[in-house]
């Protein structure tokens, strides 16, 4: 039977287990959309390609499965780039398929022509420019294999219009791609690591997104409990440990609690598992865990020694590594070290939080108390993101969707839409700020289309809060371009999109309103006015070591 390139794409996506794609059509991908018309794939029409990219991420981050987005050539492709770069930095398996002008027009500055292949090269795990319909039979499965194997990441496939239209005879289809199994961990290194863990007096387990990607959360918690190893997490590792686990010291780094960073400073062995020593986590690298030997476990060989010299590198699937280690480490209670940390916690108390409900910390905790532990939290980027990371009672992996590496404002709403779409049995709550929300607010229209169980909580301070805070603390209070001259009526805007909206401002019983809004099973928007003077504390000043963080 004969198939067009476009039909080959939709057929192979279906075979790969994809049921939904997010995107926007345009001139150069119309043949692909014509094939969608006849396929079983459901298409979700975003209002901006960046939104489509983040919706795909929302599926992938919440389920661990690859997800697909479409864009046309030129501006469609450039609009998608931020979402792809974001997926690269947080290792999210997204497949982006872009239309390109016809092969004969490539290089002629044709209408909506841009070098998508060249532009996407540094922000993808790999990218393809497809030159014939026959090539698609290799490229599509290969793109999935690359995206999901080893360290996951985004793959972009640029398909010229004539390739989408080219018809070829197909007698047999390629098998759907599977993940390539990871390299088996080196047993000798595992033994050395286990011995180091057993000998260590003051070990700390430093975990990150790699644990979640590997579905190794239970094993990481088991190691901490079995061998009494206090654990810290990066932003991306939120949810691996229950927030109230006695061995969990919370988030490390720039906005970590002071005792958490102090404990790291004192440790003699650092178990860096599924982490990449990001500068927001380490602070001044030379003074990060200065007395510690380092065991670094990761799926990506290039992470070893990239930032910090490693004493033992454990290369492989973290799940395999943790399983092997658990057989070898001894069960101990390390009571001296645990007591020492408890003392640090007592001595380095955070500044007290006022009772005012409109203190963002209290809003976030109130929401945490009102929803169940399956709830998926999405955030945008800025102060509210850090407050959520510090205050929200996470207790399960894949319940925090946040732009960790790229720090993309505008991430939250479309990612929450993708997650709500893929998890109809769960509630999704988006915490956002007024700066971030405006960066992809057009996706409220997509949310209204889909009528999803998503509650948007806008912590509205009329500022680019984290910028304002840094200007206050580190630029002598020289406030520039951090206050919005006008603050729109967000409640009216959301209502304009057809979304039920509330405003906690001047409400007699804000908590009962919050509770009512969160119990809605449909899109719901809540404006929460907060004062712009609230800062994220503690904070490590730029260039300083983590133990030099300041509190209030």
């Amino acid at each position, binding site marked *: 039977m004969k198939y067009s390139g476009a039909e080959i794409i939709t057929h192979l996506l279906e075979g790969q287990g994809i049921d939904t794609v997010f995107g926007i059509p345009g001139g150069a991908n119309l043949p692909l959309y014509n094939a969608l018309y006849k396929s079983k794939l459901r298409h979700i029409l975003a209002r901006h390609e960046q939104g489509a990219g983040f919706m795909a991420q929302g599926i992938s981050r919440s389920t661990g499965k690859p997800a697909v987005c479409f864009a046309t050539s030129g501006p469609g492709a450039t609009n998608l780039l931020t979402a792809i770069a974001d997926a690269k930095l947080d290792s999210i398996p997204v497949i982006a398929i872009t239309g390109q002008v016809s092969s004969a027009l490539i290089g002629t500055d044709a209408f909506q022509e841009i070098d998508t*292949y*060249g532009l996407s*090269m*540094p922000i993808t*795990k*790999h*990218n393809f*420019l497809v030159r014939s319909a026959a090539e698609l039979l290799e490229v599509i499965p290969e793109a999935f294999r*690359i995206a999901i194997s080893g360290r996951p990441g985004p793959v972009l496939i640029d398909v010229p219009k004539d390739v989408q239209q080219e018809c070829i005879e197909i007698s047999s289809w390629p098998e759907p791609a599977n993940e390539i199994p990871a390299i088996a961990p080196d047993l000798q290194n595992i033994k050395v690591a286990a011995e180091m863990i057993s000998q260590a007096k003051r070990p700390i387990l430093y975990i990150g997104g790699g644990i979640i990607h590997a579905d190794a959360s239970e094993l990481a918690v088991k190691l901490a409990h079995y061998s009494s190893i206090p654990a810290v997490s990066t932003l991306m590792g939120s949810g691996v440990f229950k927030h109230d686990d006695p061995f969990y010291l919370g988030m490390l780094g720039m906005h970590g609690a002071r005792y958490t960073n102090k404990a790291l400073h004192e440790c003699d062995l650092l178990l860096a598992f599924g982490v990449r020593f990001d500068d927001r986590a380490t602070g001044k690298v030379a003074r990060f865990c200065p007395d510690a030997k380092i065991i670094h476990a990761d799926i*990506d*060989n*290039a992470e*070893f*020694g*990239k930032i910090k010299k490693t004493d033992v590198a454990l290369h492989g699937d973290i799940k395999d590594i943790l399983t092997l280690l658990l057989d070898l480490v001894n069960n101990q209670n390390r009571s001296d070290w645990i007591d020492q940390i408890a003392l640090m916690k007592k001595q380095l108390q955070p500044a007290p939080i006022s009772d005012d409900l409109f203190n963002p910390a209290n809003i976030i905790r109130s929401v945490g108390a009102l929803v169940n532990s399956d709830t998926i939290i999405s955030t945008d980027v800025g102060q509210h993101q850090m407050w959520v990371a510090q205050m929200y009672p996470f207790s399960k992996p894949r319940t925090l969707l946040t732009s960790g590496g790229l720090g993309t404002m505008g991430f939250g709403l479309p990612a929450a839409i993708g997650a709500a779409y893929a998890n109809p049995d769960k509630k999704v709550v988006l915490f956002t700020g007024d700066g971030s929300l405006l960066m992809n607010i057009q996706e409220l229209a997509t949310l209204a289309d889909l009528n999803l169980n998503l509650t948007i909580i806008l912590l509205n301070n009329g500022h680019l809060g984290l910028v304002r805070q840094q200007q206050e603390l580190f630029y002598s209070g020289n406030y520039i371009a951090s206050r919005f001259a006008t603050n729109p009526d967000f409640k009216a805007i959301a209502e304009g999109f057809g979304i039920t909206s509330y405003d906690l401002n001047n409400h007699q019983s804000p908590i009962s309103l919050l509770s009512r809004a969160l119990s809605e099973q449909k899109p719901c928007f809540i404006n929460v006015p907060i004062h712009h003077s609230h800062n994220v504390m503690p904070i490590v000043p730029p260039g300083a070591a983590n133990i030099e963080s300041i509190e209030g």
Partner: protein
Amino acid sequence: MTRNILIELIVQNHAGVMSHITGLFSRRGFNLEGILCAKIGDGSRSRMYLLVKDDEQLEQIEKQLGKLYDVLSVKVIEKFDETIFDRLQEYAGVETVIVPD
């Protein structure tokens, strides 16, 4: 002065490969002193020689190159005749011209 060292790559031979490799060097701030590249066998693959400094970046260069999809093998060569990079013009049949710094 840090001595130079040679990295031999076997890569897939298609239009984007050179960009992937040179893009990696510029993106990650690696220094590249010279490149030689030519197809091998039936033309589906190329052999590429990268002249780099033998410094603390070398390990990351090797590892990051190894992650590129189109790079099939990465080998570090310590003993080689570096003059080949200086004598390229001779091979091209062009009179040697010393370009002032």
